[in-house]
């Protein structure tokens, strides 16, 4: 098997991602990794890939990808995006094959169902690992292709697939895409903020501002234009994924995968670990609220989350016909039916 994937055109923020590099925060390197780790696990399950396989993370808009060489299997997960192969619509969360010369065209997110989509290939994208991972840490300039966003014209190697089977299978859509609430816990610094500010965090609605990337997502409060209470920065303390920090200008932001390992901005609360993918997938402009939960609820949610990832292979549904052969595939309703929580707030 000798296959490659050529990027003919690239959306604004494509990057090679995997589960990241844990364990280096003490040396100044945050873990990084895909913004939506559930979507990475889905891709690995659909294609029988090893856990360390690398995929392409697509922020908001994909691009055109041409298959080069031997036929190989691919799968798309995360936020569903308009996608076609040679003009034929292709489903999300279903494996399918690409033959030499075929072009997979991935457009923008469908139905405002998320932000990050993932393109997986059987065997995984192959780049030289740096510090134990192929994933791109853009801020540190590590991993991927020279630590950078992928550009048009790049020819990516594909590692040998674990299996030569070309089973076409699909997964049901997860229920965290399209949520309008993020569960939080108070954190180590919450009590530095006034009671009124903490109340505001719980009662106001927020939207995700366009100022978002893999490092942090700024929030726009919907209740008033008044900035949030900003406190003097303290001594730098370790920073964790999901913490909600308030910068000096009173703008709240959810800290994301490529966070600074340490920081001095006070953090008012933490999004629970089970909701980190949901937070990352919130579409820009989506109005949502924070919901305070108990520590026990947070841990129960984390157990549930981990179980749902562990059980993914059991959810795989073989498809009798290859999606490549099905006409009018979207009519089969493969990507609809996401359990949406975006009813009224």
């Amino acid at each position, binding site marked *: 098997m000798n296959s490659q994937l050529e990027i003919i055109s690239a959306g604004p923020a494509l990057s090679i991602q995997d589960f990241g590099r844990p364990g280096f925060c003490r040396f100044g390197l945050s873990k990084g990794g895909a913004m939506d780790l559930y979507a990475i696990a889905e891709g690995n399950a659909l294609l029988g890939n090893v856990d360390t396989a690398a995929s392409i993370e697509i922020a908001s808009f994909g691009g055109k990808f041409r298959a080069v060489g031997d036929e190989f299997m691919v799968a798309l997960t995360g936020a569903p995006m308009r996608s076609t192969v040679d003009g034929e619509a292709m489903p999300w969360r279903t494996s399918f094959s690409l033959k030499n010369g075929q072009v997979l065209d991935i457009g923008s997110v469908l139905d405002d169902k998320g932000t990050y989509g993932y393109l997986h290939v059987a065997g995984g994208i192959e780049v030289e690992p740096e510090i134990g991972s192929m994933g791109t840490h853009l801020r540190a300039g590590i991993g991927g292709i020279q630590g950078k966003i992928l550009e048009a014209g790049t020819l990516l190697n594909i590692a040998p697939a674990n299996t030569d089977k070309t089973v076409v299978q699909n997964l049901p859509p997860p229920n965290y895409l399209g949520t309008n609430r993020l569960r939080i*816990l108070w954190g180590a610094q919450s009590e530095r903020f006034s009671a009124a500010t903490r109340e505001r965090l719980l009662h106001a609605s927020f939207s995700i501002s366009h100022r978002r990337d893999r490092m942090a997502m700024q929030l726009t409060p919907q209740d008033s234009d008044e900035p949030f209470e900003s406190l003097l920065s303290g001594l730098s303390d370790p920073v*964790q994924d999901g913490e909600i920090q308030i910068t000096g200008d009173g703008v709240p932001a959810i800290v994301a995968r490529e966070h600074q390992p340490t920081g001095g901005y006070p953090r008012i609360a*933490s999004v629970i*670990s089970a909701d980190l993918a949901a937070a990352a997938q919130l579409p820009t402009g989506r109005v949502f609220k924070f919901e305070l939960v108990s*520590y026990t609820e947070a841990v129960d949610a984390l157990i549930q989350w981990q179980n749902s990832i562990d059980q993914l292979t059991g959810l795989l549904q073989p498809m009798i016909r290859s999606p490549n052969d099905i006409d009018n595939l979207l009519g089969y309703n493969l990507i609809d039916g996401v359990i949406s929580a975006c009813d009224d707030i």
Partner: protein
Amino acid sequence: MSDTISSFPNIVDAGDCGMMVLFGDQLSDAINNAAHAFDQALQQQGWRGVEELIPSIRGVLVRFDPVRLSRHQLRSNIEDLLAQRDWLTAPANPERKLWRLPAHYGEESGPDIESVAATMNLSVEEVVRQHSSTRTRVLMLGFTPGCAYLGSLPKIWDLPRLDYVKAEVPPGSLSVAVSQTVLFAISAPTGWQTIARTPFLSFSRNEAPYFHLSPGDEIVFEPIDNKEFETLYWESCQGKRIVAPEDAE
């Protein structure tokens, strides 16, 4: 941390997978030493379910898997360990290293040295003498990979940050503010004043160990001229280790 809690050390929950142990609320060598000593002690415990220990200027963040180790159990373990001694007087890690790092002060390596000298009301020579001869320690690594916060410098070095951020300083830059020096391992933006540059690269991405400086290591600088800098920097970039650490004890 709650500022209303005035007694240290204290243990505070930080999210569902984090617990912070704090030894104080200010920059102090004793507090930093306690943080590093406790980090060492935690490493030796090897508690099941502890996933990562992140020492900082004034404490340690313990990242754990709450499915394998309950928060209650972790807190109780930490309390027991805290009670074993006065961590503020704990001996420094006997395995810490002393790094004598060459540094080219002023000129294009340290464009802000004159303004720093003027602020401190010292000659540039005296700034170089004081900065290079003060043995500081790696208080914490953070900001960018391998980026080391070194301190603390004498009170006279409690310099303000710039009122703007420089888009980029090159790897090895030594920038000062708030009684600390930051040693940048990769190029980065900074609001601190850059007085020198070391040709020593504290981060090598292609070969383990990737990070050469550890929290608690000690540093002194040895002034070199531009020509020596160029030579050593070129050697560093070729992958040569230009500095061999010594035992600090």
